[in-house]
């Protein structure tokens, strides 16, 4: 069956071991996690988990049902119409062409965020597939480290 990519938002109680419950569910049932982000929801006892996963429609349906079945899960949102954003940090040697790097970053809603003695750190934030393009484009400037932040999403 055709595998589809899905972004699933899970609203859970912000309590210890809740993330372990979510990830061990994926591990134990052999589901994939492409990316995962977690943060508390302001002014509440809740956390927002965003999971990007791939699977057949049947598997996606099971994932959603199993996530919902966890006792601390309040809500599972799976929507095709999500606004998705991801951020990435890249470290370049200081000898690279900094104005080109700056220009590249601004095309992806970013810029140079830190300059040290022998390196600069650049940031971009955009849709996940644009972030992929950004990383590809950044390759010509010999990046020494790339850290992706994982997808966050919100219903449109």
């Amino acid at each position, binding site marked *: 069956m055709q595998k589809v990519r899905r972004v699933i938002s899970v609203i859970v109680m912000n309590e210890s071991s809740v993330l372990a419950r979510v990830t061990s569910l994926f591990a134990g049932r052999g589901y994939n996690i492409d990316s995962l982000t977690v943060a508390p929801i302001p002014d509440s006892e809740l956390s927002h988990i965003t999971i990007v996963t791939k699977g057949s429609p049947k598997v996606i349906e099971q994932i959603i049902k199993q996530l919902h079945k966890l006792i601390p899960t*309040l809500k599972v949102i799976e929507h095709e119409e999500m606004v998705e954003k991801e951020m990435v940090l890249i470290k370049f040697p200081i000898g690279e062409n900094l104005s080109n790097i700056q220009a590249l970053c601004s095309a992806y809603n970013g810029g140079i965020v830190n300059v040290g003695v022998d390196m600069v750190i650049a940031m971009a934030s955009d849709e996940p597939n644009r972030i992929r393009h950004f990383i590809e484009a950044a390759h010509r400037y010999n990046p020494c480290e790339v850290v992706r932040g994982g997808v966050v999403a919100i219903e449109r």
Partner: protein
Amino acid sequence: MQMSGAQMVCEALIAEDVKTVFGYPGGAIMNVYDEIYKQNAFEHILNRHEQAAVHAADGYARSTGKVGVAMVTSGPGFTNAVTGLATAYMDSIPMVVISGQVPLSLIGTDGFQEIDAVGISRPCTKHNYLVKSLADLPGILKEAFYIARSGRPGPVLVDIPKDITAEMGEFVYPKEISIPTYKPNYKGNDRQIKKAAEAIKRAKKPLLYIGGGAVLSNASDLVRELAEKTQIPAVETLMARGVMGAKNPLLLGMLGMHGNYASNMAMSETDLVISLGARFDDRVTGKLSEFAKYADVIHVDIDPANIGKLVDVDYPIVGDIGTVVEKLLPALDGVNTDNYRAWREILNRYDELHPQSYQDSDEVLKPQWVIERVGELLGEDAIITSDVGQHQMWAAQHYPFDRPRQWINSGGLGTMGFGFPAALGAKRGNPDKTVINITGDGSILMNVQELVTASEYKIPVINIILNNHFLGMVRQWQTFFYDKRYSETDLSFQPSFKALAEACGGIGYDVTTKEEFDAALKDAIEQNKVCFMNVAINRLENVLPMVPSGGALYNMLLEHKDQ
């Protein structure tokens, strides 16, 4: 009121009306055991192994419908309990297991008898807790019982560090409980129920497919009423034996790998599956693509994750079996029972063609005879537990189960060693009933230490060991599919089961003939003591019919040349 965490545990158990706790003490849980010593509101049964304690609580829960309670210490006490938790989890049994843990300050230091209990038990409990503050303890205990028994039931673990059971604090046990993230849906969608009723009225060959959920929901009477009102034939899963009642003319039997011919053919030819609390387990469906190939499916289940998991469903209904069937009944007013007459006749002919039967013998005892004989003598008065293997299937096939909660076995996990401790729990919960554990010479040794528990507490469980000197079910597969290479299944070397029982304060019988069996069973019931009835049966007897693993349900082996 000020009290210690250990006292709070006892007070909570009393508030939950717990009468019996099964367990085993140890370092990290000693504070609680000290409080157990001081109280008289509930009894504690000292099983001789933590696994057995959890199975006993499980058997208690299955036979009474109440939440079973077990208590163990940290580390090995807890890891021994894991098989019991997993067994209960797979069969959705309401249970609360309380485990001791090393003090909070030692957690994460590889302390003596420290193990990550919530980590290990996460996939085999409905929910679990590590108590991190005394203030949380009363609320957690209340939640544990509520979660265990509500929705789709299941075991809940509460892991309590030793310093928390020692600490003093204010005890207020919550009266009401509401967990905003946990709201099981019992009611079922009215529109879906109506649509399902219309589908039933339109169907030509409908079939009730009844699972363990009908037992857990105490919906047996309603399910019988549904069958009688519509005259729709029914098949039961292993977990549902007793729901329809053995004498019910609409019951075709058990379906699945060792189901009878008529049941499996009914599932293969039906045009509408009405699934009530069943979960389309692989031992039931055989090859999925061939399962109920011509049918639409109505699936009623309290767990939405069960619906559409394996089989595509046309009429999904999330809800409690009893509540949904109660709504379905009036929606089926005016159903024409003649619509299904031809279908019933076809199925009756299938049953006449290949009835559930066996070849009896004058030379050697047949296990099927033994089970039918127990059924003749005790019928619906007995509670039957079983271990796992051939004897389990023979019992499920041949015992005339007449009521729910009469048949107790590990269906989902298939845990050898379950039957004897589960029988102890069942007997404690039902002191007026005769409790018989049908077991094998392999399984019984997996919790044989419970002879001591049974003797000490005078729990007169009758263990009928169907002894073929083989690990029979594996041996059967080796005969059928591995060219008779009997790798590690020959159990010719055995203890004297009679002497073993006697050594532990019980009674032993060696039985080789029908007369001896009758005499032994009569004596065992009169003696009112735990006993081992070592019954020598035909060594190479097979469980038939059999759907080979992965095969289509309609391709049954009905006989085997070695039989």
